[in-house]
């Protein structure tokens, strides 16, 4: 194929894949995925001897039925939204970022470093300094797999996964060792963050500035991808890397830029968790938000504006399952089953949608 024909193919790339001519609305896929997950989950509940309808209702009610539940859902959706953006940005350039969990933990370490080192010394500048440090730290951590992929072509999925465990162990090492607070009665905690290093919260709840960061970032990424030349270039790189290289685009730089942006987002999630939710650096700051961010991004088809409601929904699953643990005595692993099934639903909804569309088309022809 000559470069000219390749370039022509690039021109033909469907720039906004969400607006392909279909009779199904764009949110049908995610909703279908959730419906499939609910059905499969009911089967497991029946096997475990539980009532599916009561459990699902308790889950929904716990997530969205009460004021407390909604606040809890918004609190939970903050790290999820940021971690989903961490996956979606590189995914738009065709790269897997499964390192969200590690980037989150490294961001937590970076924010603790600023908070513990400067204390209240920076005054009102503490939070801006902390946010900048965390963004840089997250980008740096994600550039390890990014650079290894770009320069040496090492499998980025496996490197990022290994680094997740390294970052988690690094947190453990710090709070058991050098950063351990002697007054924490033997618990592996760092000293509490000074007031100046706690992100502002909304009316005394745990809903914090991180949520705003997430929403604004999603909006910015949407704008960049949909309305700028850079965004168009990223789409071309994803759709046809060979053609992109023929027209002189540097694939590696797109890989690195999107990876770094993604890592920075996941690190912000870590900042919110240690600064507001825990108030200190400690182990177990994340029940796998980084991994579930991967799920949300796929659920939303890597579309930034759909990530916002998708993250709220999955955040609701978390807060609802907290309620299930308390009220119905179900184990905490219940939410993992449910999330795994949502994944399965996402993968099943694609073929089902294709099948429905094919049928519709054949009906129209008749």
């Amino acid at each position, binding site marked *: 194929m000559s470069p000219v024909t390749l370039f022509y193919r690039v021109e033909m790339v469907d720039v906004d894949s969400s607006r392909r001519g279909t009779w199904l609305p764009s949110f049908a896929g995610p909703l279908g995925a959730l419906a499939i997950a609910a059905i499969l989950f009911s089967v497991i509940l029946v096997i475990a001897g539980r009532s599916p309808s009561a459990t699902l209702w308790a889950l929904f009610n716990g997530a969205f039925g009460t004021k407390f539940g909604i606040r809890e859902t918004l609190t939970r959706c903050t790290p999820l939204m940021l971690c989903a953006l961490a996956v979606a940005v590189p995914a738009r350039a065709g790269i897997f970022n499964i390192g969200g969990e590690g980037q989150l933990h490294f961001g937590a370490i970076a924010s603790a470093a600023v908070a513990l080192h400067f204390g209240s010394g920076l005054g009102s500048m503490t939070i801006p300094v902390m946010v900048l440090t965390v963004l840089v730290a997250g980008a740096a951590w994600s550039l390890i797999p990014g650079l290894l992929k770009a320069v040496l072509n090492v499998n980025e999925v496996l490197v990022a996964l290994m*680094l997740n465990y390294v970052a988690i162990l*690094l947190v453990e090492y710090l709070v*058991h*060792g050098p950063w351990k607070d002697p007054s924490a009665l033997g618990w592996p905690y760092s000293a509490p963050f000074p007031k100046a290093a706690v992100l502002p919260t909304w009316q005394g709840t745990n809903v914090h500035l991180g949520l705003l960061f997430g929403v604004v970032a999603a909006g910015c990424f949407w704008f960049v991808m949909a309305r700028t030349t850079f965004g168009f270039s990223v789409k071309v790189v994803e759709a046809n890397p060979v053609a992109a290289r023929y027209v002189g685009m540097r694939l590696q730089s797109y890989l690195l830029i999107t990876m770094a942006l993604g890592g920075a987002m996941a690190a912000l999630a870590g900042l919110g968790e240690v600064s507001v939710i825990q108030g200190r650096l400690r182990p177990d700051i994340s029940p*796998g938000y980084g991994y579930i961010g991967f799920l949300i991004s796929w659920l939303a088809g890597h579309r930034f504006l759909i990530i916002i409601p998708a993250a709220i929904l999955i955040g609701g699953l978390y807060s609802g399952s907290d309620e299930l643990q308390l009220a119905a005595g179900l184990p905490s692993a219940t939410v*993992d*089953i449910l999330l*795994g099934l949502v*994944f399965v639903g*996402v993968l099943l909804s694609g073929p089902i949608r294709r099948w429905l569309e094919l049928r519709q088309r054949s009906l129209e022809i008749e």
Partner: protein
Amino acid sequence: MSESFAWTPLLVAGAAAAVGRGTPIALAALGEGISEKSGVMNLGVEGMMLVGALTGFVVQVHTGNPALAILGAGLAAAMLSSVHAALVLLCDANQIVSGFALTILGTGLSGFFGRPYVGVKLIGPEQIPLPVLRRIPYLGEILFQQDIFVYLTLVLTAGAWFLLYRTRFGLNIRAVGEDPEPAFAQGVPVRRTRFIAILIGGFLAGVGGAHLSVANTQVWAERMTSGQGWIAIGLVIVARWRPIPCLITAWVFGAMLVIHPYLQGSGIEVSPYLIGMIPYIAAVGALVVVTVLHRRSGHGMPASLARQLNLPE
């Protein structure tokens, strides 16, 4: 002089422990290798190991028979892997996402159904010294005074090599992994071959998980595999998709998992959390080295790994 004398039995005991701890990784990597040889990447190893670990543990608690534990663990994990098979082979799902779903699902299912077994203790499988072989100096003590899982691993590794390189079915596996469309045209049942390879992979990952809970820790804990499934997937690349190197590298990683008590014993004080990073960092290092060394030859990767099938209906 007397100090240097005491090192030998210590090292031999350490090597024997490393073989024991490396066995779950070896089995999981062997299974993943067979699955990948057929062109299907399965990132669900972690979840399948957990399901196998729980099932094996439960069977061992109730029957005390390690052979039944192996069978139960393998079948349970193979059932989970059939979800991956269905998604990948029937729905043309993205292999990476589907495998990931399997890991989360397996983590959830094992945590959910395993709660009554938290804190339960069991009697592990007994060490069965093999006659004659155990008298081989050093090697006998390291390899041939182990439990049934370890011997099974040795047999299965040799068996996997034989299956892949000396049987018709093995040839089919490699053919559908390298180039499925021509294989299909030649009459090889691509989907069926891949399906069986995925199930073998799931079975072996489950048995590996069972060794972890039944023999190594002898307790069940949620998420107890702690990334060993991911290490196994990395090992497949490091061993360049060959069964026997897979086994040996798994033992090396087993050594990294048992290193901490030995360091403490010899008076070196290092944080266990820093030591805990060694296998993960070593895996990254090994991946980099293998990728760079074999850049031209494609380091033995099945040419159609994780690629979408393009078969006529």
